[in-house]
């Protein structure tokens, strides 16, 4: 991969990897429903937005995140705008965390992710339940939050690998 970085076209493609993953995941959702595991679901987009906006927001523009939220709402049939609002709240909180952090710490980031996803899922449930009167399964939201939190370290390794390669393309 590192040797490919020297070719201009690959350089260009690699810098767009986070956005490409974001749009594929909202159009397609990595939900693994076909495996049919009863109590398994996680929100890949939350992890993706959290990691990239915390690490370096230049790779995942806020406007792309906003558009991705709109697409996600249409695909999952949520009232339009809710996911955008939630994703942008993640961006706000990660931006705040980045501003107050001098030396990044994995454990701190991990638990901050838990706080963020609990907060935005609560906001989402409140909007759906109280404003749009859509019945939601609280337990599934909780399971989803749990697995999103647990699976973060796995994606962290993967995203770190991508980030290192992208950084090389930008600074070499």
């Amino acid at each position, binding site marked *: 991969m590192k040797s490919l970085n020297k070719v201009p076209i690959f350089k260009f493609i690699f810098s767009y990897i986070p956005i490409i993953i974001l749009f*594929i995941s909202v*159009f*397609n*959702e990595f*939900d693994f*429903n*076909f*495996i*049919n595991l*009863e109590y398994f*679901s996680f929100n890949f987009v939350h992890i993706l937005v959290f990691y990239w906006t915390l690490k370096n*927001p*230049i790779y995942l*523009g*806020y*406007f792309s995140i*906003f558009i991705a*939220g*709109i*697409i996600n709402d*249409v*695909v*999952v*049939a*949520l*009232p*339009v*705008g*809710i996911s*955008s*609002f939630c994703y*942008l*709240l993640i*961006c*706000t*909180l990660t*931006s*705040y965390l*980045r*501003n*107050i952090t001098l030396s990044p710490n994995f454990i701190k980031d991990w638990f901050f992710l838990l706080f963020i996803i609990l907060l935005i899922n609560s906001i989402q449930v409140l*909007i759906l339940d109280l*404003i*749009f009167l*859509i*019945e*939601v*399964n609280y337990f*599934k*939201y909780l*399971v*989803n939050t749990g697995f999103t939190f647990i699976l973060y370290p796995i994606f962290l390794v993967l995203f770190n690998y991508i980030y290192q390669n992208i950084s090389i393309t930008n600074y070499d």
Partner: protein
Amino acid sequence: MATSRDDFVIAFRSAFLKKKDKQKFSLISLIFLSILIIILSSFDFKIVKIIKSGINDVIYRSSFIVSIPENKIKNINNQIETHFKIYNNYQNIETELEILKQERLTYNFLKIENEKLRKLMNESINSNELVAKVLIDRESPFLKSIILNKGSRDKVEIGMVIIDGVYLVGKIIEVNYTNSRALLLSDINSKIPVILQPLGIQAIASGVGEEYGNIQYSKEEYKDIFNISEVIVYTSGLGGLFKAGIPVGKIYKDNIDKINFFSDFRQLEYVKISSYDFEGNN
């Protein structure tokens, strides 16, 4: 103390208002924009509906294309599962086929008798059907629905019934120009009037967000008179949306609140969209 509050304000202002080199929009403006969209989408303005329908059309088609690789994997997975099931079920199917052949004779007789009685009562049910392809069967943890490739262009309307073979699958809840969304029976917001046969009890079949449904609002004595091994759940026709007698699922004696749907919602490829006109003298 004052310094730490200043730090907080600076960090928060920076998070909200400051744009990075490649950011064209500040976070605060996009957050306000999304709140505005949420508010607008909750109103039923015609212009909002048209724009929403256009966006839906484009996104559903794009999602269908992006989902092609996942659908391929899903199909391979289903084929492997089916292969093993076919081998294991062969003997059972043979026995069941023999029983069904015998029952068919009785069924044919009842069907003819039913038609005669309807003629006598001057009552008829006209149905319009069209076949639709399932574009996306995105079963999110929060909503069970499918996207079909037929929309208002093909005269699909909200409330039309979705049938898989002869089994009920759900109903149309959103119609765009070239496609539509159907809410599956398994969704937590799905509630349809049913009748439990041969007990003859009216109830409501409710989705629970899983692959099965629940029986709600049945008579209290329902549990006492459940003395047979299985009960078939049909639509009751109450409410006038569904025709009476569309098979929904089965209830077994070991769990009398749980409906096992006949149709496997994960493997829908083509479905029928139906609407019924009830005519008669009653």
